[in-house]
């Protein structure tokens, strides 16, 4: 709560008169808003604004940032629903939207939009409707793509309101309708500009109905005359124009300009290059030639704006000569036939302008007045009470004249006359009155210009800047006006002025003729908002102006005005001068008044409502002249302060407030008198009406300003483009310069190239001469060389000849040498032969001598021999012979010995080899043996395994058998026992016949004993049962090898038993008992012994050869003597059979006889 009260205080402080406090509070609020995200503060502010219309609050609300937009919109939405606050909230919304907040795109999603549309569809208050429509129009370009779902709502609204314009439901004042009409017109433009296809189809469907036909004829059709065919109608489609892509690349101002482009209405229209270039070229020249006079404004523009257009202007000057008159006259007449009423309206004045000699300004006024009268006539005719907007602008003449005055005033002395005359003709207005406003207007125009520029330069705030600007403006204006004056003096310029028609046609036409002036004032206010912008634009685009002008012929009267600075300025001044309406130019002084007088701010809102009304009334009725004068004085008293644009509208309201005050002071009757003029409505109503009207005007103004801002935005962009273009042009120029420089360079290079070529040619020639010289030298030298070559050839042939000669000579030399050698050889041979023959001769001599000596010696020896005899020769011969013989003998002996040695050695060798062979054989044998052994072992192993298997099998069989026995025994052991006993008794009886009973008894006991021992060796019962004495045999068989057991059935055994008995009876030491003993089980003591003995022989043999048992026993018997144990056995064996048959009592001996028993004992 504390906070709320705090806010309340703050809010009240917000409206304090101290600037500092206000700023502080504003910053406090803004900080609060930045920190707080809740809706509370915004709601409070909105409420407070609705209560007080406080400007600072409005400022805060319009600059709300992102998070609060929702609250604001919600709040606005809430208030839109309420009828009481609807109007003010709509104006607030208008304020907010016009500033184009950053969150404008959210508008389409906000619930506000549908409720606004609903309100527009249902509300019946014209003021609300107009305000709402203006808000909607402002909003549309911001939300082009998202607004499409409401498209039909827009269209419906348009349909409803347009019908309103005609039908005037209920008690609606006509003045309101004018406003409404204007806003509907704007809506028409917007809708047609943005959604042409959809809109046209809507129009088609909506106005095809009969009940709407009248509305169409009266309202919509005139509107349609102000638009050109939208290109989208040709190229686009319903869907395409709703396509978001189309809108994406367009900003808000783009959309606005797009809409303006299709308009033919001067207030709305906008022409830009690219849009109508094709028209320019086609339209420019024909018109120029055909009706130069019809577009005099163009000429002025041309001469004023650009140098390029001067030829035309000059030509036009020439055209303006009387000689050209018929032609000029004829062209308007043709135009009269073809063109809309507007054109016809203006044609007279043009004609007038043409008819008047251009050089004489004195003639102008009458012409102008004439034209004006004509205009009035036409407007009077045209201006139907219904007020179609298509009609020509009546107030134009007024502005016209004033403009003219204004322009010419500084220089031409004739202008005042003109103006006066005109004003006289048009209005019965006192001279002085007119003068004063004029003067004032002049002054104010300067200041206003300053303010205008300021408004466009947001960075500037202070007065200083504005002053500077104003100075500059003055200068500019001076230059402009100078030119203008030149034109006006030289040329009959009146047609320039004509288009005071920049005013929107609605105002003029809707009002009765008497009120027209007031309307013009209103429209002037409206246009004033446009003016600064247009002025700027025109200043910015001096170049492009001409093409635009070329386009004007169609809507000549109006088109040029908005765009030409001259026109606008004229308008402004005219407005100010003629009507003391709250035009923006007047406001600065007024504000000064207000501030100076220190009027309390709380009145502001009252003023705002009241003020326009009075101004309006004053202008229309001209009853408040005195007051106005006073005001004018006050205005003059104060130096016009340069104020920002945003203050302007506030000033309208506040300045007008003074009027209200004054009005209130006036006596009621006088007021009533005046007001009854409107149709007798009561004064209070009238005040209300006027207030609303003011409000409407304000709204309209704001809307127009919004448009202006959009234009400004666009202009800035275009300016940038121009600058860019200029830069590019400069760049181009620079490039061209460079190009030129380079060309120069190239030429220089070319010259130098030629020089070089010349030098090169020279050098080439020199070179050629040198070459030819050298060639001749070469030739000479070659010639020389050839000569030398020939000489050398000759010499060589000579040399060859010489060589040949030498060779021949050498051969001859060789031959000679050979001959010499040969002869030498022969010589030496001959000499040798000679020496040989000499030596042979000497030898011959020597030999002869020797022969002689020997002969003598021989003779001597013969003598000696004869002297001695041969006595010893016999002995020697004998000895020699003996020796020889002996030698022979020995030699033979040695030979013999040698031979023997040889043979023996051979023998030894032989034997040794033999030995080696034997050894090898041995080894092989051994190996073989080993092999065989291995083989045998393997076989043996197999056999052994087989044996093992057999053993296992036997064991199994035994087991099986024993098992079977066991079973049998179990069945009838006792019975058998008894049977046995009886049998035994019988047997005993039988046996007693042949032997004693003890035997059987012993056998029996033996049986029993064996049975008791029965572990491995079970005595086969059948044996024991059958033969009482067969027990021994049975026991033997049981202990014998496995093979023997199955092979000895009881039957054969019976035989042996009987045999045994016989043998025991007959021969005590037979082999049969021995066989029994000789086949013991391997485990028995005897068996082991026997195995030791029989190791040499294979066991298998032992096992298998059951038949050879006897023979084995024989061999055993032979060897018994060696072994002591066998010795001990043999007596047993011998004893066994012996005592048993004869001594039946010797059971103990029998006992001993059992090998198994002994074995058991041993083990």
């Amino acid at each position, binding site marked *: 709560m504390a906070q709320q009260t705090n806010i309340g205080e703050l809010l009240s402080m917000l409206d304090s008169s101290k600037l500092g406090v206000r700023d502080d509070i504003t910053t406090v609020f803004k900080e609060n808003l930045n920190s707080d995200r809740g809706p509370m503060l915004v709601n409070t502010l909105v409420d407070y604004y609705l209560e007080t219309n406080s400007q600072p609050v409005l400022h805060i609300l319009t600059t709300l940032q992102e998070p609060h937009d929702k609250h604001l919109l919600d709040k606005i939405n809430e208030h839109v629903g309420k009828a009481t606050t609807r109007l003010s909230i709509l104006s607030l919304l208008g304020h907010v939207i016009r500033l184009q907040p950053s969150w404008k795109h959210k508008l389409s999603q906000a619930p506000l939009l549908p409720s606004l549309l609903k309100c527009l569809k249902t509300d019946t208050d014209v003021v609300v409707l107009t305000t709402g429509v203006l808000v909607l129009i402002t909003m549309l370009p911001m939300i082009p793509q998202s607004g499409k779902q409401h498209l039909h709502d827009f269209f419906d609204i348009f349909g409803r309101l347009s019908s309103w314009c005609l039908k005037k439901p209920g008690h609606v004042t006509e003045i309101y309708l004018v406003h409404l009409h204007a806003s509907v017109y704007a809506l028409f433009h917007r809708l047609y500009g943005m959604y042409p296809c959809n809109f046209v189809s809507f129009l088609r469907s909506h106005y095809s109905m009969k009940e709407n036909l009248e509305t169409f004829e009266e309202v919509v059709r005139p509107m349609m005359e102000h638009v050109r065919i939208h290109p989208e109608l040709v190229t686009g489609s319903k869907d395409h124009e709703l396509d978001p892509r189309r809108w994406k690349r367009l900003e808000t101002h783009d959309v606005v300009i797009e809409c303006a482009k299709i308009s033919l209405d001067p207030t709305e229209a906008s022409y830009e290059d690219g849009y109508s270039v094709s028209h320019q070229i086609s339209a420019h020249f024909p018109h120029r030639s055909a009706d130069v006079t019809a577009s005099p404004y163009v000429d002025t523009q041309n001469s004023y704006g650009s140098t390029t257009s001067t030829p035309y202007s000059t030509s036009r000057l020439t055209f303006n000569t009387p000689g050209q008159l018929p032609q000029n006259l004829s062209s308007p007449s043709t135009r009269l036939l073809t063109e809309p009423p507007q054109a016809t309206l203006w044609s007279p004045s043009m004609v007038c302008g043409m008819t008047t000699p251009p050089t004489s300004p004195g003639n102008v006024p009458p012409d102008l007045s004439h034209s004006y009268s004509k205009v009035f006539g036409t407007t009077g005719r045209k201006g139907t009470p219904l007020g179609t907007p298509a009609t020509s602008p009546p107030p134009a003449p007024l502005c016209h004249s004033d403009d003219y005055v204004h322009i010419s005033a500084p220089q031409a002395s004739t202008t005042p006359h003109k103006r006066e005359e005109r004003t006289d003709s048009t209005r019965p207005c006192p001279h002085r009155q007119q003068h004063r406003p004029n003067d004032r207007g002049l002054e104010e125009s300067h200041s206003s210009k300053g303010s205008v520029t300021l408004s466009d330069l947001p960075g500037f705030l202070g007065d200083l800047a504005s002053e500077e600007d104003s100075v500059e403006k003055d200068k500019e204006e001076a230059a402009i006006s100078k030119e203008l004056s030149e034109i006006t003096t030289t040329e009959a310029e009146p047609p320039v002025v004509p288009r005071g028609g920049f005013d929107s046609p609605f105002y003029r036409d809707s009002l009765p003729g008497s009120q027209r002036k007031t309307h013009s004032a209103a429209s002037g206010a409206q246009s004033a908002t446009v003016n600064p912008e247009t002025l700027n634009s025109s200043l910015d685009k001096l170049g492009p102006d001409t093409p635009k002008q070329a386009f004007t012929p169609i809507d000549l009267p109006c088109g040029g005005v908005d765009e030409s600075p001259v026109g606008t300025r004229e308008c402004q001044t005219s407005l100010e001068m003629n009507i003391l309406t709250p035009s923006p130019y007047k406001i600065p002084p007024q504000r000064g008044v207000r501030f100076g007088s220190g009027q309390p701010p709380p009145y502001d809102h009252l003023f705002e409502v009241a003020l326009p009304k009075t101004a309006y009334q004053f202008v229309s009725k001209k009853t408040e002249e005195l007051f106005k004068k006073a005001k004018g004085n006050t205005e003059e008293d104060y130096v016009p302060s340069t104020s920002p644009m945003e203050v302007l509208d506030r000033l309208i309201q506040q300045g007008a407030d003074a009027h209200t005050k004054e009005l209130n002071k006036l006596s009621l009757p006088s007021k009533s008198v005046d007001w009854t003029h409107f149709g007798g409505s009561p004064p209070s109503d009238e005040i209300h009406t006027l207030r609303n009207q003011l409000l409407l005007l304000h709204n309209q103004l704001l809307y127009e300003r919004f448009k202006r801002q959009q234009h400004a935005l666009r202009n800035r962009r275009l300016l940038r483009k121009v600058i860019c273009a200029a830069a590019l042009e400069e760049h181009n120029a620079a490039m061209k310069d460079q190009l030129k420089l380079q060309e120069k360079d190239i030429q220089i290079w070319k010259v130098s190239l030629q020089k070089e070529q010349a030098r090169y040619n020279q050098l080439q020639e020199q070179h050629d001469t040198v070459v030819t010289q050298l060639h001749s030298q070469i030739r000479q030298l070659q010639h020389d060389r050839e000569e030398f070559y020939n000489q050398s050839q000759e010499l060589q042939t000579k040399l060859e000849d010489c060589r040949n000669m030498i060779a021949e000579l050498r051969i001859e030399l060789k031959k000679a040498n050979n001959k010499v050698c040969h002869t030498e050889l022969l010589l030496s041979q001959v000499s040798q032969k000679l020496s040989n023959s000499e030596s042979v001769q000497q030898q011959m001599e020597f030999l002869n001598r020797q022969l002689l000596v020997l002969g003598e010696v021989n003779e001597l020896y013969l003598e000696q021999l004869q002297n001695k005899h041969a006595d010893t020769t016999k002995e020697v011969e004998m000895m020699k012979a003996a020796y020889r013989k002996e030698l022979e003998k020995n030699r033979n002996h040695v030979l013999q010995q040698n031979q023997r040695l040889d043979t023996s050695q051979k023998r030894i060798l032989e034997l040794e080899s033999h030995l080696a062979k034997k050894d090898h054989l041995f080894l092989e044998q051994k190996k073989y043996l080993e092999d065989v052994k291995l*083989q045998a072992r393997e*076989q043996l*192993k*197999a056999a052994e395994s*087989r044996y093992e*298997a*057999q053993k*296992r099998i036997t064991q199994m069989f035994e087991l099986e058998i024993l098992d079977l026995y066991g079973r049998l025994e179990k069945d009838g052991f006792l019975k058998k026992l008894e049977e046995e006993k009886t049998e035994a008794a019988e047997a005993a009886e039988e046996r007693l016949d042949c032997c004693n009973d003890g035997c059987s008894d012993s056998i029996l006991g033996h049986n029993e004993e064996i049975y008791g021992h029965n572990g491995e060796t079970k005595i086969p019962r059948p044996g024991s049962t059958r033969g009482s004495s067969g027990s021994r045999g049975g026991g033997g068989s049981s202990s014998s090898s496995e093979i023997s057991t199955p092979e000895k059935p009881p039957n054969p055994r019976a035989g042996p038993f009987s045999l045994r008995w016989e043998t025991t009876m007959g021969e005590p030491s037979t082999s049969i008992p021995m066989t029994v003993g000789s086949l013991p089980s391997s485990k028995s003591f005897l068996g082991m012994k026997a195995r030791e003995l029989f190791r040499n022989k294979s066991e298998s043999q032992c096992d298998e050869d059951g038949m050879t048992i006897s023979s084995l026993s024989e061999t055993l018997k032979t060897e018994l003597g060696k072994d002591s144990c066998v010795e001990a056995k043999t007596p047993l064996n011998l004893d066994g059979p012996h005592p048993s048959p004869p001594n039946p009592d010797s059971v103990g001996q029998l006992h001993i006889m059992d090998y198994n028993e002994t074995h058991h004992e041993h083990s």
Partner: protein
Amino acid sequence: MTEDSQRNFRSVYYEKVGFRGVEEKKSLEILLKDDRLDTEKLCTFSQRFPLPSMYRTLVWKVLLGILPPHHESHIQVMTYRREQYSDLLHALQVVRFVSDARPQVEVYLRMYQLESGKLPRSPSFPLEPEDRVFLAIAKAMEEMVEDSADCYWMIRSFVNQLKKKYRDSLPQLPKAFEQYLNLEDSRLLSHLKTCSALPLLPYDLWFRRCFAGCLPESSLQRVWDKVVSGSCKILVFVAVEILLTFKIKVMALNSAEKITEFLENIPQDSSDAIVSKAIDLWHKHCGTPVHSA
């Protein structure tokens, strides 16, 4: 030298290029031509190369000691063996321990039990675990060998070899398995450890039954070649290779029981590849056996 002259001089080259077994049959024939067969050489051969199927039975018989190394005594020894077989069979039939209706495998088992003296008193006595091992091996062997006497003898010798020769090394195999698996794929081993499936692996199937019933006979033969020729380590590598081959599936399984169940019933289609890889692995880790061994 005589052997080498008979062999193709390209044989070394064949092996280098990767054609195995081109010359193996021939070299085996040369080996088998010797009178007094060299069992060591046969062992080495069968460890290095797969045996040609036509000689497999002969080589196995020789290696298992069913036939002596001398060709001369082959016939005689074989008659002994056959007689022994028929005797055993006869004995069992006599005591009505077996009948024609019983499967041949069981007959072999009874015969073996009879021979080793472990024949139970009644055929209905429950089977010992080692009897089950015998049955598995016998079943596999029955597929490989046609003649029943041969079959019996080979089963008997094979089982005896397992019992005697490998008595000490068989219990070591699980450890070796773990070691080699760690070398080949430690991640798999750790997975098995985390699942605690390691002690539950079918070691009995793998090492005691020598994969009988786990691998199809055609593949099993090649494994048993190595086992018969004296290396039981091959079993470890076959086991490792099985795990490596089915690694993805084993990794996907998380419980020890499932892993064991899966390993006990591995798909048979890839067994040939498994065995080939296992032999390669074995050669890689244990080296190719050389003649000197």
